[in-house]
């Protein structure tokens, strides 16, 4: 479980996160909101790229904000990025192995096994020795997700993983995301604009708008919430 209390981020006169308090229980949780709502800033606070003005973040009893950013990954906080960041110069295997060698126990055959297991888990059907620079958009996204799930992650943050993917590939991605909590034992927080993906994957969802939490609860209820509908569409029309 992740407990966020009174989280505020200020960039000069802008407040991308304004006194946000919420809890993410186990499983796959959604975090949605229109562009500029503060979703990525929220992920950046958790990852340690942005220091909040105030507030606290406790993940499974650990004070995340007290850790250096790279230590958070070693603790088990993994993430993908809105703009996909698979390392082009490395092979698929080395992309995933890089995370394992910094964050996980075990070397040699144990590492090899863990890395190949993560590659299989995300459904990557390419040679592990293939350079990432030669892969298509879908496979590069999957390499990034494989990096996030290798070993024993505790929290996986997925920032718009389906961006730019066609419908069938998004469906495959959704099925795989749903399996992460059960198979990898991690809590997943999914940020995406594809409401069918969020509905399919997330039991609970929180909604941000202009840096404020405007709704949270079961995904079905949240998506019917009139404030959420207004924030997304600017009308009273239902999603």
């Amino acid at each position, binding site marked *: 479980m992740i407990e966020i209390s009174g989280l505020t981020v200020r960039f000069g006169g802008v407040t991308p996160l304004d006194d946000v308090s919420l809890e993410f229980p186990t499983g796959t949780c959604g975090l949605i909101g229109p562009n500029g709502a503060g979703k990525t800033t929220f992920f950046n606070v958790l990852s340690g790229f942005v220091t909040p003005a105030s507030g606290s973040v406790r993940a499974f009893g650990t004070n995340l904000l007290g850790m250096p950013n790279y230590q958070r990954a070693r603790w088990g906080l993994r993430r993908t990025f809105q703009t996909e*960041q698979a390392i082009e110069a490395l092979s698929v295997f080395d992309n995933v192995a890089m995370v394992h060698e910094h964050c996980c126990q075990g070397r040699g055959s144990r590492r090899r096994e863990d890395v190949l297991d993560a590659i299989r888990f995300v459904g990557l059907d390419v040679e592990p020795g293939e350079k990432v620079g030669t892969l298509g958009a879908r496979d590069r996204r999957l390499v990034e997700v494989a990096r996030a799930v290798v070993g024993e992650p505790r929290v996986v943050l997925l920032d718009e993983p389906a961006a730019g993917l066609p419908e069938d590939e998004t469906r495959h991605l959704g099925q795989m995301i749903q399996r992460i909590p059960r198979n990898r034992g991690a809590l997943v927080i999914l940020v995406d604009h594809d409401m069918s993906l969020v509905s399919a994957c997330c039991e609970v969802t929180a909604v941000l708008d202009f840096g404020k939490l405007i709704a949270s609860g079961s995904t079905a209820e949240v998506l019917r919430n009139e404030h959420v509908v207004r924030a997304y569409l600017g009308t009273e029309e239902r999603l």
Partner: protein
Amino acid sequence: MKGLALESVTLRRALVVGLVLLVVWVLVPIVLSTFWVQILTSVAVYSIVTLSLALLAGRVGLVSLGQIALLAVAGWIALRLAFAFDPPYPLLLVVTGVLTGIFGTLIGLPALRLSGLYLALITLMAASAITQILAAVNFPNGGEGFLGESASAAGANAAIVARPDWMASDAAFFRVAVIVAALMFLLGVWHVHGKAGRAWAAIRQSESAAIAAGVNVTQYKLWAFALASFMTGVAGCLLAASAGGLTTYAFPAPDSITILAVVLMGGIFNFWGAIVAAVLMKLFPEILKNFRIPADVLTILFGVGVLQAMTTAPSGISVQMGRDLTNLGHRLGRLAGRRSAARSSS
């Protein structure tokens, strides 16, 4: 299996490189005159410096314009240690490398906060400052005190590390330089294919992605500076023992820009580029002089070369040449095939 195929390709390549190196190592001192042996020694030494720059800029994305100044500092350290303690030469190589590594890491500290143009500027300023300081204090020539420089000793004791008997001749020194350069390249390859290389690749593409993978970016950037400076330190120690010794005029700050230009031309993303760069920097001017072409023409050629590399071949000559030769081979093969087909049909 693709992995196995890759391994056998790597093995074959390593064998070819080893064989070529062995031939060069054995034949160059036998076939060529002392002058060309000295020039090729200088190529071997500078290939270590270009390797260090290719490692920093190509692998980690840190553009340093201070490598030549660092080379001068290494020369100063080697001479000071040699005159003060007269240690065995292999020990002097290692100690000079380590001390230069520490010095280079201190210069690299701003890299933790800066990158790109700002880092390049900081390192260029450091290079200029070092050049000025060296011009004022000169290289140690056996004099007293910390600086070890004496006006009266000049001429009698040149600023040169005395070579031990086993590498006193230019031929033996060339062979030592080639072995040391090969060891430095192996050190570089070992790093690039290991944990550090993967972390550097991540840092070069995206520091955020590296941090999210658990990479301690500060530590790995400093390690890159330490390793590159160590390599430059070893090169400086070799230079301090090469024919002619060291003078303050041998390390002008603009050379730091020239060396970056040749590394870009040679190919910054692979280590072959470092060898091509050293050839461009040290062998080419002498070949031009041989044809009575002023070496200044090279400045223009390097300018054009960098433009060409930036616009048409970002991987540099080392990759472009291989690709072009392969294409040429394929075309010649097709041409030969067409001719034999025409002959058989007639």
